[in-house]
């Protein structure tokens, strides 16, 4: 799947030290195995790829890359252990393509520099794949900066 990358996003990739090829690979993998989130009311998808110290996300439409973001905090699993019922509407605007299940908005444990704390994630209730939104990635970036300063 060939994705068009605008100049603005190309600059964003460079700013974040992410290569175009990495993003293309993340999208290709997601398209081939279905491990991605798809917007319930639209044609946007979120695919992710992990390296040792970075989780990268590509938000894309059938024709172009719409956004890229990343976080250094590593997702360990659901906060509090296993998936259980909660008393609020936890349905997100995304569904897991592979499982055809609505992704749930749940707290997930994240770890960075030896510190483990919760954060808001998107979770497929069937395959337990975890994602975060672009806004949460921004929140995590602030959290990571604080941890880097205080744990240095």
């Amino acid at each position: 799947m060939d994705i068009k990358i605008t100049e603005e996003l190309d600059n964003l990739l460079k700013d974040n030290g992410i290569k175009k090829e990495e993003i293309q690979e993340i999208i290709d993998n997601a398209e081939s195995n279905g491990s991605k989130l798809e917007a319930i009311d639209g044609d946007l998808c979120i695919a992710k790829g992990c390296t040792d110290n970075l989780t990268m996300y590509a938000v894309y439409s059938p024709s172009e890359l719409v956004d890229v973001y990343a976080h250094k905090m590593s997702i360990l699993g659901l906060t509090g252990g296993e998936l259980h019922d909660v008393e609020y509407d936890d349905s997100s605007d995304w569904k897991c393509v592979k499982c055809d299940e609505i992704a749930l908005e749940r707290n997930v444990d994240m770890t960075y520099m030896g510190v483990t704390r919760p954060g808001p994630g998107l979770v497929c209730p069937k395959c337990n794949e975890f994602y975060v939104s672009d806004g949460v990635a921004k929140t995590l970036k602030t959290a990571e900066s604080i941890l880097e300063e205080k744990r240095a």
Partner: protein
Amino acid sequence: MPAKDYAPIDQNWLEEAGSLWTTPWVDTPSERVIVDPIILSHAASLFRKNAGYFYQNPDEAVRMVCAACELYDVTPVGHYLYADYWGMDYGAEIKMQTNSPPGITKRPIKTPEDVDNFEVLDTDELVKGPTLTTHYKALDTVKDEYPNMFAPITQLGGTMEVATNWAAIEDVFMWMITEPEVVDKLCTKAGDHMVNACRATAERYGANVMITGSVIASGDLMDREQIKRFSYNPVSRAVRKVLNEGAGPGVYYHLCGNHTDDFEMWKDAPMSPFSIVQIGYDGQDIFPTSKLVEHFGDRCTCFGTVDTKLVDRGTPAQVYEQAKEQVLAGKDSPRGFILGTACECPTNAPPVNVHALVKAAKDFGKYEKF
């Protein structure tokens, strides 16, 4: 008093207190549990000023708070806030009072139709409004004069607290029985307002700590289902939206009052890497820290409490004893622990009682987990 009249903060103390304050959030080893008695207008009493003076002079207020933090050896953060935020931005009238925080006297929403027509202000409008103008004057003063004691907080309360600053509490409670869908709408709008307010602070300072939770929506006034419908659900929605918009990373759940029947549901409330939960009371008793840690310790930082009534009217020995019990139960909580009061330190609390609280943390709050 202008800035020049305040003694400089001891930098050695500040470094040590900063280290203690950092531990609960990022697990860096330090000696003992930090104490946060939520000092606001109590600081004014140390300067022979009253609450009215404190709230009418936000720049002086934070100077007094910062000085009080050093005096008591507690969390080195300059705060300024009061419960009746956000009314004036929407046309409410507020009365400055001599011996208590400002109180709203006239609210903009009087009928269910007013709820329908009520429009939430956007971020730019809120920044120009009276609440944030005053709040930011206080925060800017801390940032300029006490940069190492600065934390960009946004005082929200929960949706019921914002709602009852817009409409009279007796009307809201009546609608809760007769027309609950009106309160749904009101709380949804309160949640939208909370998101815009947090966005304003995050844009101004690059980060934001939201103080939210459930105060009016406690077991003394509402049943579990009402708390869930009008507080937990809309607050959770708002917090999730705040975090999804990058307007975090701090989330402080202040569950004031009695939360025996509803505290467990807050375990699943949206959290960020810098989340803290404080629960005031379990029935009529102080919420046991052992119970707090049991339910929240593997999730977020726990804020153990000492009864504010005790801090206000008890003896130093009573404060010390309760603080000892709470700090022993919480000090090694896996994701951090802070000892404090169930709510704001009462304005005229005897200083010896605040000292007793801190003394208990020094005597019994030494970490064993590091």
